[in-house]
């Protein structure tokens, strides 16, 4: 990361610190439940929910960050710079020219200004803008055209050309641009060695026309924030800088920007390899309110520290447990050593592979058993040793399976919950629209705000619960570990209660879904409060006990 990156955010950081001192600051330091955005994305384009530029969020542990999504970022960060130049210093340039210059200069408006006043022509040339001649980009419909790239003969088609006049059909330009978008940089004329850059608005126009002809008359790109070039450029920028991290949630286009002590928190965490200080885990949220860890880019995994998470994930993906299972449940054939699992009662075994017949009890040749079968029951010391080893790996496997099963169940339940909640969401929305259409008294949005809150509580509760099983797996035995498990049980029960209420609402037996929602309002509120407080208690308790050395991770496991 270069120095000039941090420069941009100077003013925010200072503003932030001022805000922290004032009581007006609305995010408590452990306020990971504080809500900035609604779960549903649609609400986020209403002006009230937009991020105020000067106020960063504070994560669970004091991490300063901004939750973003691509559109908000383009609007608030990139287009703001454009406005500044277009309405201030560089009024002589067109929007198209400014956007290309900003993109080429990595959205550093100062550099654009410097280069512009230093040597305008040089800057224009570097940006692939026409020097000395006006921009003559054309997008027009013509008859009887044969395109050089696709070799198609059109009786009528749109063709596009830049100032250079190299003309190609719109379909070729469309697929060329679509491919080039993956690179995130400026896109030039199709002609080899031609350096003219395609402006943003032309991309919008080309995409619009192609989408209209191919997908039935719908204009797809409404505003600048959806411009494919800007979106691709933004994504490339987020990927390339360390202070941005994408939200790991499925299909989420949100991300977080770390401000303030970027280097501190990232460096200190990765260097403190096996730290048990989970107060440092930088939990942030994206614009869709998904919580995730900025350090390891996993979902919120509290109470586990990042290194335990990595260990656990590796273990779950590894074949090591398969090996343990094979060791505990199979025997090698005494002759060819293939692993054999006994699936019937008879102890007279025949190896499928080498056809060796042997006794499952003593692993001797079956021929020796012809006359007196029970001779193999004579006690032998070495065999006992073998059994002990088997028992140990069987136990360790069982222990792992115990925790893994619960971890996986909650993971699956989270998906199930999401489905139910999506249904409820659609249902309420439809109902409210219905009421509005009928002109009846509107069920106010406020009346129903407890729903998203409860849904979030359920998701976050389950997530925390899920990770407590990973936590518990690595936890050394102690009285405090038992207390932890007790708290875990409490949380488990509350989460299940809350989940059940949601299920009941969507149950087929219940025709009046909205009525049921309103009826259960208090219950939902109380339960989500309870989930949140039990979750916090569990995590805070774990944090404190880890700090005091009352809880520890067993390195043997």
């Amino acid at each position, binding site marked *: 990361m270069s120095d000039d990156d941090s420069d941009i955010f100077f003013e925010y950081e200072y503003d932030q610190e001022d805000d922290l001192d004032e009581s007006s600051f609305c995010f408590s330091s452990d306020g990971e439940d504080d809500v900035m955005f609604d779960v549903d994305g649609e609400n986020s384009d209403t002006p009230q929910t937009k991020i105020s530029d000067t106020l960063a969020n504070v994560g669970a542990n004091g991490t300063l960050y901004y939750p973003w999504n691509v559109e908000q970022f383009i609007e608030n960060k990139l287009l703001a710079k454009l406005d500044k130049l277009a309405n201030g210093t560089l009024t002589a340039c067109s929007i198209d020219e400014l956007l290309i210059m900003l993109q080429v200069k990595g959205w550093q408006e100062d550099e654009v200004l410097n280069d512009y006043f230093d040597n305008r022509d040089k800057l224009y040339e570097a940006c692939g803008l026409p020097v000395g001649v006006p921009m003559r980009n054309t997008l027009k419909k013509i008859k009887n055209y044969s395109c*050089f*790239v*696709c*070799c*198609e003969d059109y009786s009528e088609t749109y063709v596009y050309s830049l100032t250079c006049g*190299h003309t*190609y059909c719109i*379909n*070729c330009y469309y*697929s*060329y641009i*679509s*491919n080039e978008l*993956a*690179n995130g940089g400026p896109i030039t*004329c*199709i*002609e*080899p060695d031609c350096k003219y850059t395609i402006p943003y608005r032309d991309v919008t126009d080309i995409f619009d026309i192609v989408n209209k002809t191919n997908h039935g008359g719908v204009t797809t790109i409404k505003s600048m924030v959806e411009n494919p070039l800007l979106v691709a450029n933004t994504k490339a920028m987020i990927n390339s800088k360390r202070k941005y991290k994408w939200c790991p949630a499925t299909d989420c286009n949100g991300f977080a920007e770390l401000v303030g002590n970027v280097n501190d928190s990232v460096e200190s965490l990765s260097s403190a390899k096996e730290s048990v200080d989970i107060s440092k885990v930088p939990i942030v949220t994206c614009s869709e309110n998904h919580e995730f860890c900025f350090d390891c880019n996993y979902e919120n995994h509290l109470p586990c520290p990042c290194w335990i998470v990595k260990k656990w994930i590796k273990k779950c993906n590894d074949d090591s447990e398969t090996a343990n299972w094979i060791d505990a449940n199979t025997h090698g054939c005494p002759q060819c050593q293939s692993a054999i699992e006994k699936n019937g009662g008879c102890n007279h075994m025949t190896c499928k592979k080498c056809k060796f017949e042997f006794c499952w009890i003593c692993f001797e040749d079956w021929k020796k058993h012809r006359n007196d079968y029970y001779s193999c029951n004579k006690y032998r010391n070495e065999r006992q040793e073998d059994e002990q080893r088997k028992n140990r790996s069987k136990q360790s496997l069982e222990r792992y399976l115990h925790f893994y099963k619960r971890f996986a169940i909650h993971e699956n339940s989270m998906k199930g919950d999401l489905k139910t909640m999506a249904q409820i969401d659609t249902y309420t929305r439809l109902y409210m629209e219905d009421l509005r259409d009928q002109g009846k008294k509107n069920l106010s949005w406020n009346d129903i705000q407890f729903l998203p809150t409860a849904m979030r509580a359920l998701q976050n509760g389950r997530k925390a619960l899920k990770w407590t099983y990973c936590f518990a797996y690595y936890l050394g035995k102690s009285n405090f570990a038992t207390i932890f498990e007790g708290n875990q049980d409490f949380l488990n029960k509350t989460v299940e209660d809350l989940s059940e209420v949601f299920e009941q609402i969507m149950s087929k037996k219940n025709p009046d879904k909205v009525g049921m929602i309103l009826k259960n309002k208090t219950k939902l509120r109380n339960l989500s409060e309870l989930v949140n407080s039990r979750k916090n208690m569990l995590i805070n308790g774990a944090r404190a006990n880890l700090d005091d050395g009352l809880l520890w991770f067993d390195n043997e496991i």
Partner: protein
Amino acid sequence: MSLNQIRLQEERKQWRKDHPFGFYAKPMKTADGSLDLRQWTAGIPGKQNTLWANAVYPITIEFPEEYPSKPPKVRFPANFFHPNVYPSGTVCLSILNEEQDWRPAITLKQIVLGVQDLLDTPNDESPAQEPAYRAYKKDRALYEKKVKEQAKKYASA
């Protein structure tokens, strides 16, 4: 007919009408004897007065489904000795890289001429195999010997 087929037919037509001296390029045949326009074999003659002269180097050209939006893949035989050819034979050339200088308007003729140019003017910046790159940088005599041996192997009749 898909986009690439029309263009590829046109490329073939243009090639048959006129192509640079010493080169050849033709689509491969499929199992049933028909032409597969997506797979070509071609020969690149080494330029006169260079180490590569008096030989024609065989390449295969593979056109992807997305051609001409995406560039074709050009391959020499595996283990071809050249600093910018991967051990698999794939050529590392900026005009053949969709992340770099590929443009849909680049023709077959430009591609093969580009590959011919590359033979005697390797690009230091993007080494693709170790033996040839190392020899080229550190032991020019060995490099020249190897290239000449290779030229003999592919000597034109």
